């Protein structure tokens, strides 16, 4: 028995070529999507012919901002008083009472009548802190005199507690105008 050359090892058959439907479909969708993108970009490129330079937009922006007043930006005092709003009152009160402990709740007496009545009080305190005996001349805060820390005004949600130790010790009153500047922590 003679050997005639090397024997070719058996090779597995290649799998049959099934039509790749999902891949073809995906390609079609991708091409469609790219064609839409091309339309979109060509339209945008054409519109750029009539587009103005950025400097023109910056000029419009500057002009717009200059024309419109801004309540958050400090302007000349006279102008500010004219356009006084409720939040300006709160801001002024917070600034005026900035003596260590700042009452951040603001005065509710002037809620509806933004007048200077409460600002004229020497010791600026929260109305909720029940500054007994003091009533704002301009607004009728009748609830204040009846309000106390045990049962606050129905309007008040804050239970102010004075942290000044001198108050508590000397007069027993949470809010004492003689030794305490009405500091309170809500």
């Amino acid at each position, binding site marked *: 028995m003679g050997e005639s050359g090397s024997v070719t090892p058996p090779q597995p058959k290649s799998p049959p070529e099934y039509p*790749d439907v999902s*891949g*073809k479909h995906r*390609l*079609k969708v*991708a*091409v469609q*999507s*790219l*064609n*839409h*993108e*091309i339309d*979109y*970009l*060509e339209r*945008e*490129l054409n519109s*750029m012919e009539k*587009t*103005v*330079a*950025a*400097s023109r*937009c*910056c*000029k*419009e*922006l*500057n002009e*717009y*901002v200059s024309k*419109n*007043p*801004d*309540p*958050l*930006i*400090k302007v000349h005092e006279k102008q500010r008083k004219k356009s006084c*709003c*409720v*939040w*300006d009152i*709160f*801001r002024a*009160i*917070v*600034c005026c009472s*900035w003596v260590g402990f700042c009452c*951040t*709740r*603001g005065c*509710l007496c002037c*809620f509806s009548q933004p007048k200077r009545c409460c600002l004229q009080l020497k010791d600026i305190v929260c109305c909720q802190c029940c500054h007994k005996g003091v009533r704002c001349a301009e607004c009728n805060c009748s609830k204040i005199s009846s309000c106390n820390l045990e049962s606050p005004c129905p*309007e008040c*949600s*804050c239970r102010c507690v004075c942290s000044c130790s001198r108050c508590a010790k000397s007069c027993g009153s949470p809010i004492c105008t003689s030794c305490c500047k009405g500091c309170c922590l809500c």
Partner: protein
Amino acid sequence: MSVAELKEKHAAATATVNSLRERLKQRRQLLLDTDVATYTKNQGRSPVNFSATDLVCCRTLQGHTGKVYALDWTPEKNWIVSASQDGRLIVWNALTSQKTHAIKLLCPWVMTCVFAPNGQSVACGGLDSACSVFNLSSQSDRDGNIPVSRILTGHKGYISCCQYVPDQETRLITSSGDQTCVLWDVTTGQRISIFGGEFPSGHTADVLSLSISSTNPNMFVSGSCDSTVRLWDLRIASRAVRTYHGHDGDVNAVRFFPDGLRFGSGSDDGTCRLFDMRTGHQLQVYARQPDRNDDEIPTVTSVAFSISGRLMFSGYSNGDCYVWDTLVAEVVQNLGTLQNSHEGRISCLGLSGDGSALCTGSYDKNLKV
């Protein structure tokens, strides 16, 4: 057509798209002859001068027991609605700090809330992929909860933002993690239009925020995780009007400038940008100075403009709240460093209707005015 031919077409179309994009970029570069800060400085303007007492916190609204995610002011009254991880919406009287309504939500994972133009209803949405509308005049049930008036269902992903069309109580737009925005008829609960999704030129990732132009309420912009902002016309849902490129990360916040022709955006890339709606120009980049204390760049979570547009407020993930001079592109104050500032990430902010007060919401569970 065979697969091979399709592959050739695909390659050719890709090459055409890339070439057009390059031409567009070059054309736009030629038109970008200046930015807002350079132009303004050449006019001789100096930055707004802010002292420590010009912007003070005069109200802290406490009551939520979870992170605050969203807030909105009523257009006219000084009321605020806030949404929190505690699963509640709270409506506040911002002047008295009192809570007028506390609404327990069916799904606690709320991400956005908004007042209707008449201030009588609030809408919210979140991980339930639905937008719920509550009428504040409705009678509460036995447990003191306001029943939901309408649930808008149809999105296939979370609701990231919702806004009412100005002066229209019955039209609401939502943005979603399903990459689309939808215009709804609140009365019927039906979808009127879908922006993006199957239609070309839509966002290719989650949409995170939207803003409607005050001067042209048919136009709105949306910001997305695909790093772009897109402009839409309510009357033409089939395609975006324009796409604004520039950011290098998710666009978390978009807000129209008061003139309704420009808008600001805030992104994970740590910058805010100002774009011109009509021309597509990126007019200004507002980038914070790198801070040695920052392990990574704080991301911008929220953006708002003052009523004149001179100031831009931006909230950051590290608790900073920068007040930018929009024209000069400089920071004039950081509300995050003031006494009594938030102790956590600023998640949302907004100006009152008359522009005289700013409210910020935070992960520290509080809102501040």
